[in-house]
């Protein structure tokens, strides 16, 4: 059974259909990426998966119907979104942001403490800045905090929306290394990226979304050599 199986999903904004008949599946421990141009509906797809937008179609998480669950219940089930604009608690400290990340299983205090140490270990910068307010962080630090907060929720499926957005190449490399390392911990990842090359190099499977529809899909190492894809998304190397 797939960890997440989406079949014939439609998402509408008013009269405008943003995502049409999308089907995709994620196996446990897999990193799956969805690439495509701006406005193709990538963010909409993630928002529907976490429950921020209503959708029509089938959406199963370990065989359970997700569409009856509210956002918070999906978080408790282990689906965690790191949105494009991070949605941090700007006026609160880094430490508070991380502590709140574990809100969905707040009763496991010991586990959360271990988890916090682990996040600080992964992102030493956050430890340095733990007393600082989130809105005083730089772009890269904000992304680390967003990822750290998501990891505090002990995700089973991590939804990442453009984690490379606005970051210097060095930091992008670091972030992708961390994403790749999640595979060992058993966390599955659905990665939405405009940085198609970096995404395909990290992922196992890729989907290409254009104007709301899946136009191509396959193993990431096949897609990365697809001549049409190279011309459109991967630049003239």
């Amino acid at each position: 059974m797939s960890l997440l199986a989406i079949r014939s999903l439609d998402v509408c904004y008013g009269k405008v259909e943003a995502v049409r008949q999308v089907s995709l599946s994620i196996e446990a421990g897999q990193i799956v990426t969805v690439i495509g141009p701006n406005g193709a509906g990538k963010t909409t797809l993630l928002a529907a998966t976490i429950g921020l937008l209503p959708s029509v179609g089938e959406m199963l998480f370990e065989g359970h119907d997700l569409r009856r669950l509210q956002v918070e219940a999906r978080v408790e089930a282990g689906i965690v979104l790191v949105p494009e604009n991070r949605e941090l608690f700007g006026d609160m400290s880094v430490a508070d942001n991380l502590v709140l990340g574990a809100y969905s299983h707040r009763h496991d205090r010991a586990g959360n403490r271990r988890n916090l140490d682990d996040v600080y270990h992964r992102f030493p910068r956050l430890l340095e800045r733990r007393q600082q307010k989130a809105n005083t962080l730089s772009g890269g630090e904000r992304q680390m905090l967003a990822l750290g907060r998501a990891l505090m929720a002990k995700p089973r499926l991590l939804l990442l929306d453009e984690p490379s957005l606005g970051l210097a190449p060095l930091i992008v490399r670091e972030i992708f290394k961390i994403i790749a390392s999640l595979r060992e911990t058993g966390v599955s990842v659905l990665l939405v990226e405009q940085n198609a090359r970096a995404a395909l190099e990290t992922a196992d499977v890729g989907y290409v979304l254009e104007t709301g529809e899946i136009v191509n899909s396959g193993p990431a190492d096949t897609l990365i050599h697809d001549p049409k894809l190279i011309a459109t998304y991967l630049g003239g190397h």
Partner: protein
Amino acid sequence: MSSDIAAILAIDGIASGAIYVLIAIGFVLIFAVTRVIFVPFGDISAFTALTLAALETQRLPGTMGLVAMLAAMATLMQLTADIRASDLKAIPSTLFFYLVVPLVPVALMWFAAGSVMSMPVRMGLSLLLVLPIAPLLDRIVFRPIADASVLLLLTVSMALHFALVGLGLMFFGPEGVRTQPLTDASWEIAGMQVSLQTFLIVGSAVVFSTLLYAFFELTLTGKALRATAVNRTGARLVGIRPAYTGTMAYVLASILAGISGILISPVTTIFYDSGFLFGLRAFVGAIIGAMVNYPVTALGALLVGVLESFASFWSSAFKEVIVFSLLLPVLLWRSLSVGEVEDEAEE
């Protein structure tokens, strides 16, 4: 005006200002977490005073009927919602939280009302009895329109206030009440008699504001409340339910409103509709704090209290006019300090 009179007026003003501080902080708390400007908040305060007065004279307070009615309505609405969502497993917890929990203080009151109680017990019971009102109103009135604009929520809130004042008359009757003084003792400070009651009032305001601050800083629930206020979507994404934090905000704010009602009841005569004016004075304080800043809100509410005290000395007929006119310079100052164009598109 001699300096003696000025000092007395100032002390009076600080005492009533301290009461407004509690209400004003409650306003800001509810608004920050739920985006609702809860106009009937002053009414909650007045109802506490009326409840306390009823207990003093060993009558059954009208609050019991009000709470029972609201609990029944909220339960019905939640049950309908559960059944519609075919979520039958939720029914026991619905019955527990919306019916049993609010009715516990009502039942306590039922058994205790005839007996003579000490003052602290009366206060505790009154406070307990008003606590469910605001959360139940939240469920009945605001939850169905939680996604609406701030302005629509405010309009509903105004209408709710008028409904509540009318209900107040039905449940409490038109008589004004004034409870026994908290204490008759007074201290002499710098040649002036200052009643212990004044100290108790100011002291409670300080203590409860501090407790609230500690709750926000030190507990996870407090942080969750702040998180909801700072970023609703962000809060949902870590699994914080806005409906839950909303209820918490209403309960906490109701504690503040209840305490303010207890503190004000021996100071002035309270009628079923007195709450609106307290509320509005506290509002002026909250607006000084731009509905977001707790310390500035507290200072603003104190300022309103002091101004009111002096205004009633100068011209009691125009007291209200003077207090509410304070809003104009405050808004002017706020309006001049507005920076870049803020965008608040609708639709």
